């Protein structure tokens, strides 16, 4: 437990926060309320998908086949896996990319305006074979998701 806490502290960029973990969390949520564009550190600290959903204050995500994911079935290297999400859902304001079984599931958040298409491609690390999950958050707050498994294999000579 102690170690985990230290890891968390390492990931904090704000050197001002030196108090207890509780006050740090409080301060950070306050900061977030003040400025919606600030980096959402607590979401990037969440260790599970449930924690993450809570941290981002998301409504219950609903599975939608209107979200298409383009991911490789097998990755010969988990360090670089290209993932793409696109959707026919209207008014998408946000894409949230997750790798479910990573120590930190949240990979990226993309905030879109009406000037861009609801299609995003990125490259993620996969610590192991895992579902890639993409949340699409609409302007009205509803969240849809789709997921697809990426198998991470051992490659090379193994040495």
């Amino acid at each position, binding site marked *: 437990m102690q170690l985990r806490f*230290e*890891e968390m502290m*390492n*990931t904090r*960029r704000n050197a001002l926060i030196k108090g207890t973990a509780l006050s740090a969390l409080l301060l950070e949520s306050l900061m977030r309320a003040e400025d919606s*564009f600030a*980096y*959402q550190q607590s979401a*990037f600290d969440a260790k599970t998908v449930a924690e993450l959903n809570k941290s981002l204050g998301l409504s219950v995500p609903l599975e939608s086949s209107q979200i298409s994911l383009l991911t490789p079935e097998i990755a010969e290297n988990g*360090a*670089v*896996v*290209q993932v*793409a999400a696109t959707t026919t859902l209207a008014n998408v304001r946000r894409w949230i990319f997750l*790798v479910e079984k*990573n*120590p*930190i*599931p*949240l*990979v*990226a*958040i*993309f*905030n*879109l*305006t009406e*000037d*861009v*298409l609801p*299609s*995003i*491609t*990125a*490259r*993620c*690390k996969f*610590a192991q074979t895992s579902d890639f999950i993409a949340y699409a958050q609409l302007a009205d707050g509803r969240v849809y998701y789709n997921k697809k498994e990426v198998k991470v294999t051992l490659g090379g000579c193994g040495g």
Partner: protein
Amino acid sequence: MSDPMRIRLQSVAGVTTVKVLMSHEMESGQRRGEDGRIIPIWNIQDVSASWNGKVVMTAEWGGGISKNPFMQFAVKGTKPGDKISITWKDNRGDSRTDEVLVT
């Protein structure tokens, strides 16, 4: 000092696909060094994309984005001569902006 990005654009019927490669370590904060200690996280946290000076997309990234990140998105209603610019900022306070023109 940070190295330049490589931004490539492809325009079809007023939709410009923007492909960006950035030069960054993206240390996840999960790995241990040879001494057994966690290598501190070092990653791009904020990305923003502008079209003729107007922000059209922002992103927040964690340590789960791969080294030398790649990102692709598409801007609607572009015309030749439009300026696309990309800015990133990392958790050490480094940042970089590069821009290209739609042809």
